[in-house]
């Protein structure tokens, strides 16, 4: 784990450095822990929902859902049994915020889930977590046991009759696609983690019951909102969304690592300020940054001069904040080489279910490798563009559908690098049949 920096308004990482054993309940309670849950149990559900709405919390998993609207839909959903699921299957390369929370402040995630359970009258929760990090799982399990021993989990929580909630850890086999509910729900049910039927979490989620699914960061925000109040939380952030967000900086940053950033902070600050990324290791300006993870798009720093780190500003640039990933590269990196690695990631993480994802990702990678060898001929670039476009259109789930984001943005920003890989004197060999 890389260095974790504090900002003045830290709400998610505030406890990180102060706790020697983050799984211990008393330490957590001393540091404002469980105040959110206490508050929640005194509130009427409508009021609680109102707080969430005022807070303007947007899902930090990358899907961009409005949390208040989602909670309301689930509260209304028919069904005696409802589930609360925390999807900690953080598979995005360059993202390490959920692992940090699970490791350094597990009780905040547990408290968030417990509030959700109180709100939805759910009695069973699951933590779906990658098996690659057994020490995190162990830490989380200890926190669960401690919470149970302190009666923050189990039966009659806080002495409220009928407020029963427990959390079970489900270890995943790993798989990028399992960040998508369509694949995560079957995996949680003990089946293969591939998208099968379209999962509607409100109507038919886990075991056919309404299911609330968030990432750990979103859950960790819930107690803060209740503790500070919706409007105070909102004031921390920007006009379109409240609060702070964990940003994972990696690539050629001077100071790579995890940062808690208020939504609305200028992007230039995050990239270059000494408190944050601190510019490139080589001192040269960044050539491009890749935001939002592998599924996001590339951008040049110049493009983001007046851009704040907010959802709406990013969207205007056809970018995404996603799960808070920023990968930065300086001009020593060729864009074709970079994109070949992105394509290789898609090949490795294709679940194999649909033809476009399974075979298409491989064909895209092969064509990028051809460009790396400068073996292209006229017509190849169009053939390549159409291949990527069709794969993105014909993939079954958001994994394959997002394959074009990095590639097309890269082609748009650096067309010359692609053109260099073509022998323009060679005869055009192939007409694109599709």
């Amino acid at each position, binding site marked *: 784990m890389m260095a974790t920096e504090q900002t003045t308004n830290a709400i998610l990482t505030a406890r990180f450095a102060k706790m020697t054993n983050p799984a211990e309940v008393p330490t957590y309670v001393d540091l404002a822990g469980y105040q959110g849950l206490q508050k929640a149990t005194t509130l009427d559900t409508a009021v609680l929902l109102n707080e969430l709405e005022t807070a303007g919390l947007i899902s930090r998993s*990358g899907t961009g859902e*409005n949390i208040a609207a989602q909670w309301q839909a689930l509260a209304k959903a028919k069904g005696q049994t409802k589930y609360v699921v925390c999807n900690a299957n953080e598979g995005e390369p360059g993202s390490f915020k959920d692992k940090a929370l699970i490791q350094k402040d597990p009780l905040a995630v547990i408290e968030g889930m417990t509030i959700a359970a109180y709100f939805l009258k759910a009695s069973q929760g699951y933590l779906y977590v990658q098996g690659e990090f057994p020490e995190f799982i162990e830490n989380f399990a200890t926190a669960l046991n401690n919470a149970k021993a302190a009666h923050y989990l189990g039966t009659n929580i806080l002495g409220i009759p009928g407020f029963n909630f427990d959390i079970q850890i489900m270890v995943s086999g790993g798989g990028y696609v399992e960040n998508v509910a369509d694949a995560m729900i079957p995996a949680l049910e003990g089946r293969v983690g591939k998208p099968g039927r379209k999962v509607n979490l409100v109507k038919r989620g886990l075991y056919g019951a309404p299911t609330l699914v968030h990432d750990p960061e979103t859950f960790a925000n819930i107690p803060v909102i209740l503790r500070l109040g919706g409007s105070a939380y909102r004031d921390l952030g920007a006009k379109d969304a409240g609060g702070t967000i964990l940003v994972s900086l990696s690539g050629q940053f001077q100071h790579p690592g995890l940062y808690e950033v208020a939504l609305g902070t200028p992007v230039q600050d995050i990239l270059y300020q000494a408190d944050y990324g601190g510019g490139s290791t080589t001192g040269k300006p960044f050539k491009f940054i890749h935001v939002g993870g592998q599924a996001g798009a590339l951008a040049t720093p110049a493009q983001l001069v007046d851009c704040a780190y907010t959802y709406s500003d990013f969207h205007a640039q056809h970018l995404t904040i996603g799960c808070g990933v920023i990968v930065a590269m300086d001009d020593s990196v060729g864009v074709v080489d970079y994109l070949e690695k992105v394509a290789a990631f898609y090949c490795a993480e294709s*679940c194999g279910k649909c033809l476009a994802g399974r*075979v298409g990702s491989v064909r895209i990678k092969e064509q990028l490798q051809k460009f790396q060898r400068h073996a292209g001929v006229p017509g190849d670039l169009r053939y390549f563009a*159409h291949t990527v476009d069709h794969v993105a259109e014909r993939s079954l789930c958001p994994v394959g559908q997002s394959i074009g984001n990095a590639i097309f943005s890269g*082609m748009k920003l650096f067309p010359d690098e692609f053109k260099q890989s073509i022998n323009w004197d060679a005869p055009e060999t192939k007409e694109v049949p599709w």
Partner: protein
Amino acid sequence: MATKLKSKTMPTQYGRLVDCFDIEAENGQDERSRSEKKTAARRFLVDLQLSDHKIECFGCPSNGNCQIQQDALATGIYRTTFDVPKHSTVGAMDTSSPFIDYDPEKCILCGRCVSACHLKQNRNVLSIAGRGFNTQVAADFGNKINDSICESCGNCVFACPTGALTAKDHRKYRDWETTKMQTTCPYCGSGCQINMIVRNGEIVDAEPANGAANKNMLCVKGRFAAYRFAASKDRLTKPLIKRNGKFEKASWDEALDYVANRFSQLKADYGADSLAGFSCSRSINEDNYALQKMVRVGFGTNNVDNCARVCHAPSVHGLGTTLGSGAMTNTVKDITTDVDVILLIGSNTTEAHPVIGAQIRGAVRNGTKLIVIDPRKIDLTNIATLHLQQKGGTNVALLNGMMNVIINEGLADEKFIAERTEGYEKMKALVADYTPEKVAKICGLEPTEIIKAAEMYARADKAPIVYCLGVTEHSFGTEGVMSISNLALLVGKVGKPGCGINPLRGQNNVQGACDMGCSPFDLPGYQKLNDPKTLPKFEKAWGTKLNPDIGMTSTQVLPAAKTGKIKGLFIFGEDPLVTDPNTSAVREELASLDFLVVHELFMTETAQMADVVLPGLSYLEKEGTFTNTERRVQRVHQVMKPLSGVMDDFKVFCEIAKRMGGKMDFATTSDIMDEIAAVDPAYGGISFDRLKAHPNDGLQWPCTSPTDPGTPILHVDRFTRPGGKAVFMTLPYEAPNELPNDDYPFMLCTGRELYHYNTRAYSERTPGIREKAGKGRDLSYIEINQINAAEMGISDGDKVRVSSRRGTIESYAAVGDVVQPDAAFMTFHFPDGNSNFLTNPATDDIAKCPDYKVCAIKIEPVKA
């Protein structure tokens, strides 16, 4: 709650953030319109699929019937435009199975085979394994198909839309050269519909058809072994007369005259009752009807029987007595769809009736609870809620015990008992004695198991009883059947959907052979000889005088041959030397006959002892009908030309009867069915013409008039027994005829296995079957418990000597925990160690069915 919040979901975070950018176009603008892109997408996907496909259409069995070819044709993409450095990374072709090939490089991973395996066959062998580009269909955990638990049913092959999963038989023909003809499977009584695939008059393959009983499924025998035997080179083609100990070829005229003369002479010398005929329950109804008519009209005796005698005769007699009709009361679909509990007694369904077994597995997958009562740990016990592994031969005690529990707990259906049954009080008094504690001791079970089973069955809304030869083939088999009837009547689970008493008939047409009157007690349609109305009716219909005396069963005929009471015997398609208990005695009995005629497809062991052997025709060469276990009369079609020079079987019977002075003639099998309809009320509405309109579901008897749609469930309003009420029988438990002692310490049970069928006349002529059968050795085996094996120093596969009071054979040990300690199990399929040298010919008193399921043996290791 507040008004619905406006879902301020942020605009798409992932998905398509960036549009297609075409560097080679002006401004990078993608020039295609939306609709152009949409139509191009299909071409793209076909191209993509072809880039990962082994294209060798000329060598591919699915050429001409392939989803990829169709898509290529529809899009005009015939070869991939990708520069493909390599095909997919999946493994090489799996040709390990004797029946099925899997080529992962031709697989489109549609998952239909997996669905067929999981949801139809319910075997869960195949699954989609691996990720991304390495995804492929795997058997078990990535084994070769032949090393997996695959049963080679071939239903995955039928589901495959490309050449990935293909039958080995398919390598040699292409679909466009062939035609399909539907017929009924000739193996067990399930009555599966098969499409025979014919090229130039030769059957080259078979695939499932959508019959009512099989729903597009087949088992390994039906799929791969139902046709090769008919084209086998060792078929009999000419009548053979034994002269000076040697068979000599003869013309039909000569042979038929000889047969008729010899039988006539014996009849003149010793009387009509010195003759007998055994009919063939593998053959069509029409042949069976003609044979019994030949025996009754030509021979002038009622000494006619069929092989139901050695399997389900107790069901016919037992259920005939208690309910009035000795057949399965409900349909296969009915007892495996949406039922709460299935009570399975003495049936190794997944091996003996594999397609019904698969449907039981399906029912369990859908939530049905399964109770298995069987002394062996059969395959279905793996998914059973409860397995009562009782000692062999204790059925009656166990069933009495269950009834005791039901009565004591007040679970009996008093209303049903009062309104629709008689004899209850007497039975109630008897079973009061059979407390669970007492019964548990007899059966070697825990009392709680008996109580739980009784409660589960009695409390269920819909609970059919399914049983098979584990109930009937005992020295008290009929009593066992009647006990089952008692149990079902006690809780009122008869005459209702999803309930009933369901004997699974062993052979394709054993139900039909019984229906046709191939029985010494009954004329066609179970019309009793001892009913004064029966004989005049048939004398009028057949225009001849009939013998009024009840005849002898097959199990009585053979011993009577030795005593000289029976002099002449006509055997149609049976091989008693292999199938009947105590082989040494059967050989002596057959040898003491004056004149033996065997009408057969092949030179069987029995045929070798005959004086005259007549060649017969297989089911593939006839038009006719089979009646399956659920009373469904289904068509059998002539798929191939009859073997040259071989007469129609029914014509042979007509000729013999005529030459013996009987009045009997038929032109076609359709005419025979018309006569059956005229004399048997249950078949009254059935004709070939009408069956044409029911190609997939046939007609279920009773079907009394041309407008009667048939009867799926028997006894709905009243029982067919005279008076309309069912009767409870009072049946005390009696120990089996032969129990183990110090000299013969093991209790032997016999049965069938999945791959071979009975005498294996059909199955052994398919080479792949022999690769899979007999634990992969095609040799006999005896299942022994591991505890006994360890005590005797026997390891799996060791040669052992097995002896009973009647004979000794050598076989190979199959050590495991399928049988209990001190028990053993053998099949009678293998000539190297036929269990019938050991089995006990003692029969039950009513149906005269021998006790194949219990005999005492000893086992000794054979030192190499």
